[in-house]
C-alpha cells in the first residue's frame, strides 16, 4: 500500500477525529456509514457477550456452572448457538400467514437496532444527533410492538396470539409511565441557560452543565423518575419479572412459540438489543451518559488522567482474569487446547488494554468506556432480576403499570414542573432540609 495513501487516510481520520461533531450532524456520509456499521457490530457483539454472560452469571447465582464445554469456560458457546440456529430448518406453519410471519421478526429487529442511531456514546460518538432524539428513541422502540403483535397473529395459534396480546397491552401500558418519567427528565434540562432539549447529546451536556446527574437532581424527584423508568423499561423489554409474553410455564414461549431457527434468533437478537437500547436511554437521561464519575468532586487534570486509565485497566484486569483461570485449568492434556485458547484470549484482552493506554486513543475512548460500563451495570441488573424474582401475573402487572407507576409519574411530573418553575424555593427550602438531614445523620453516626 502506498504510504501517501495511508497518510491521507490517517489525515482524514484525524481531521474527522478533531471535528468533534457527530457524522450525522456534520453531514459526513462516509463516517456515518462507518458508525452505523460499528454500532451494529458493537450491538451484535454485545448481544453475544450478553448471551454468554447471562448464562454464566445466572448459573453462578444458581449454584451451577453454566456452559463449560464449548471453548474454555464455554466462551465459544454463543457462537456455537448462533451456528446451530442459523443451520436449523426454518419452519413456517402451514396455517400461518407466511408473508406476515416472515416480516414480523424484521420489524422487531429494525425497531431494536434503529434506535442506536441516536445513542450518544460520547459527545461526538453517535451516528447522528437529532433534535428530537429522545422522542425518536421512544417512538422507534415502540414500533417493536408491531412486530410482536404481527408475529403472534401470523402464527395462527392460541398461545402466540395470547402472548402477542399480552405483550402489546403490556408494552403500550408501560410506555405511558415511561414517557412521563422521560418528560420529567426533559423538564430538568430546561433549567440550563441554553434551554431545554430533546437531543440525546444535549441532555448529557445539560447534565454536565448543571454539574449533576439527573438521578440526583431535586433529590427525591429525579430518583423517583429514574425508578419509574427503570421498572417500566424492564416491562417494556419483556424481561423478568415482567416476562409474561414469553412466560414459559403458561404460554410455552409466548408470541414466538411457532418460530424456530434463524427467525427465532432474530427475536432473540432484538430482545437483547432492545434491553441495551432502553438501558442507554436510562443512562443518558439520568446517569450522565458518557460522563465519568465525580467530574465535579474529583476534577482537574490529574484526576482526568487517572480516570482515563480505567478502560485500559479494565481490559488488563479481564486479561489477567483469563490468565488466572487458564492457570487453574486441569493439567490433563485433553484440556491443553482450551488452556491455550483461554490464555490467548487473555492475551488479546491485555493487548487491547495496552492499546487503550495510548494517549490519543485513551482520550477518545474513555467516553465510550464509561457509557458502556453504565449500560453494562444495567445489563447485570437485568440478569440479577431474572435470578431473583418470580413472575407477575398479568392483571397484577397491569395494576402496577396503571395504578402505581402512572399516578406516581403524573404526580412526579407536576412536582417537577412546580419545582422547575420555582427553583429558588427548592434551593431555599428543600435543599437546606436535606442538608440538615444529612447533618443529622452525620451526628448520629
Amino acid at each position, binding site marked *: 500500500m502506498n504510504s501517501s495513501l495511508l497518510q491521507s487516510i490517517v489525515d482524514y481520520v484525524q481531521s474527522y477525529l478533531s471535528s468533534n461533531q457527530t457524522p450525522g450532524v456534520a453531514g459526513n456520509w462516509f463516517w456515518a456509514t462507518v458508525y452505523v456499521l460499528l454500532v451494529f457490530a458493537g450491538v451484535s457483539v454485545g448481544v453475544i457477550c450478553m448471551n454468554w454472560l447471562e448464562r454464566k452469571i445466572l448459573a453462578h*447465582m*444458581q*449454584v451451577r456452572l453454566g456452559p463449560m464445554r464449548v471453548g474454555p469456560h464455554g466462551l465459544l458457546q454463543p457462537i456455537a448457538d448462533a451456528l446451530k440456529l442459523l443451520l436449523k430448518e426454518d419452519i413456517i406453519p402451514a396455517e400461518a400467514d407466511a408473508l406476515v410471519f416472515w416480516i414480523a421478526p424484521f420489524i422487531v429487529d429494525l425497531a431494536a437496532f434503529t434506535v442506536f442511531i441516536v445513542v450518544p456514546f460520547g459527545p461526538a460518538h453517535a451516528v447522528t444527533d437529532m433534535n428530537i432524539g429522545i422522542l425518536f428513541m421512544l417512538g422507534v422502540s415502540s414500533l417493536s410492538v408491531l412486530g410482536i403483535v404481527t408475529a403472534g397473529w401470523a402464527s395462527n395459534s392460541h398461545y402466540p396470539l*395470547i402472548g402477542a396480546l399480552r405483550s402489546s397491552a403490556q408494552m403500550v401500558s408501560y410506555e405511558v409511565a415511561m414517557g412521563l418519567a422521560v418528560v420529567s427528565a426533559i423538564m430538568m434540562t430546561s433549567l440550563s441557560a441554553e434551554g431545554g432539549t430533546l437531543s440525546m447529546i444535549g441532555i448529557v451536556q445539560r447534565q454536565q452543565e448543571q454539574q449533576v446527574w439527573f438521578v440526583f437532581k431535586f433529590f427525591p424527584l429525579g430518583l423517583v423518575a429514574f425508578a419509574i423508568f427503570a421498572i417500566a423499561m424492564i416491562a417494556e423489554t419483556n424481561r423478568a419479572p415482567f416476562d409474561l409474553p414469553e412466560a*414459559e410455564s*403458561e404460554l410455552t414461549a409466548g408470541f414466538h412459540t411457532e418460530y424456530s431457527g434463524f427467525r427465532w434468533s432474530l427475536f432473540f437478537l432484538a430482545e437483547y438489543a432492545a434491553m441495551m437500547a432502553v438501558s442507554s436511554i436510562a443512562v443518558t437521561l439520568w446517569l450522565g451518559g458518557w460522563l465519568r464519575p465525580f467530574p465535579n468532586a474529583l476534577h482537574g487534570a490529574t484526576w482526568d488522567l487517572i480516570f482515563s486509565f480505567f478502560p485500559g485497566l479494565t481490559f488488563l484486569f479481564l486479561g489477567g482474569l483469563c490468565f488466572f483461570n487458564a492457570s487453574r485449568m486441569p493439567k490433563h492434556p485433553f484440556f491443553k487446547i482450551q488452556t491455550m485458547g483461554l490464555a490467548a484470549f487473555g492475551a488479546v484482552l491485555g493487548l487491547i488494554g495496552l492499546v487503550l493506554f495510548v494517549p490519543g486513543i485513551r482520550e477518545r475512548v474513555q467516553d465510550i468506556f464509561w457509557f458502556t460500563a453504565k449500560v453494562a451495570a444495567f445489563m447485570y441488573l437485568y440478569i440479577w432480576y431474572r435470578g431473583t424474582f*418470580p*413472575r*407477575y*401475573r398479568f392483571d397484577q402487572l397491569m395494576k402496577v403499570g396503571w395504578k402505581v407507576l402512572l399516578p406516581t409519574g403524573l404526580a412526579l411530573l407536576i412536582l417537577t414542573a412546580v419545582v422547575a418553575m420555582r427553583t429558588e424555593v427548592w434551593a431555599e427550602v428543600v435543599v437546606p432540609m436535606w442538608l440538615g438531614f444529612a447533618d443529622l445523620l452525620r451526628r448520629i453516626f
Partner: protein
Amino acid sequence: MTDPKTLSPPSLETHVAARDETFLDTNELVINMGPQHPATHGVLRVILRLDGEKVLGLECVIGYLHRGVEKIAENRTYAMFNPYVDRMDYVAAVSNGLGYCEAVEKLLNVEAPPRAQYIRVILTELNRIASHQLWLGTHALDIGAITPLFYTFRDREEILKIFEKYCGARLTTHAFRIGGLQYEAYDGFEQDVKNFVKFVKPKIDEYEELLTTNRIWLERTKGVGVISGRDCIALGVTGPVLRASGVKWDIRKAQPYANYKNFDFEIPTGLNGDTYDRYLVRMVEMRQALRIIEQAVEGIPEGPIMAKVPKVIKPPVGEIYHSIEAPKGELGYFIVSDGSTQPYRVRVRPPSFVNLQALDLMCRGQLVADVIAVIGTLDIVLGEVDR
C-alpha cells in the same frame, strides 16, 4: 350457566350448547393445555374454558401414563408386587413402599421389629423432605422464580445420596420388605443422617429467604386457588392442601402407624386455604420432618430388622385397608386376599388423583396464570394419578 360454587362442573358439551344460545358473547375461548405443556408436571391434559384470561371452568384429561399397576398386582405374589408401588409416586417411593408393606403386614398380623420401624421412619421422613423440595423447586419455577429449583435440587441430592448408600437406588428405592427391612443400616448411616439434618436446616431458611416475603411471590400466591376446608373434605382432598385450609388432619397423628406416636411433632395448618398457605404448610412440614428425624436417629434401638415372616407369603382370607400420610396426602392400600400367594385385588387410593379433583373448583374465576400456580401447589405426580 351453573353456579360456580357447585362442586360438579358442567361438562364441556353442555357448556357449548349454552354458549350457542347466547351467541352475542363471542369471547369464550377453549384452550387445551398439555399433555406436553411444561407446567402440567408430566402428561396432564387440561381443557380450559376462558373468558379472556379468566377461567370459567376446566376439565382434566388423565390416563396418559396408565400402566395398570393395580391389575399387575393380581398376577404377582405379595413380595413381587412390592417394587411396583415405587413407580407410582416416583418422587416419594419410600412412602409408597411403607404403605404397602404395612398393609400386608397388617393382613398377615405381624409387626416389624422396633429397629426396623425407626429406620423406616427416618427414611420416610427424608423422603418427605425430598418430595417437598422437588415440589418447591418446580412450583417456584412455574411461578417464574428459577433459582429455588437449583437450590432445592442441590439439597435433595444429599437425601438421594443417603438412599443410594442405604439400598443402592436413588429414586425407586424398594427400601422396605414385608415384615421389616432387607438391609441393615450401613456403617455411618446415623452420622450421615445427622450431618444431613445439620446441613439442610440453614438451606430451608435460604429457600424461605428467597420467597416467603417476596412481594411478587406474595401477590402470585395469596388468595390464589382458595379452597375451604369444607370443600376439601367434600372432595376427599388430603395432605398439605387440606391442612392449609385449616383442617388439622394428619394420619400420623390421627391414626398413628409405624411408630409415629413415639415422636413429638406438630401438624401445621393454614388459615386461608390459598396457595401461599399451602407453601407455608409444606415449609413447616419440612422442618417438622427434620425434627422427627432428629428424634428417631437418636433413639434407634438395637435388635433384629426383620420379623418372622414365612418364606411364601400367604395371608389369610380377608381384606384390609391401610393408609399412611404420604408427602402428598393420604395414601391408602386396599388389599383383598383369597388366601393364595397373590392378592385377589389391590386398590390404591392415591392422594394426587383425589387432590386433582379439586383443581376445577380452585381455578374457577382465576386467571390462566393461576391455573399454573394451582397445579403446582396441588403437588401432583402423574404416575400416581394414572397408576
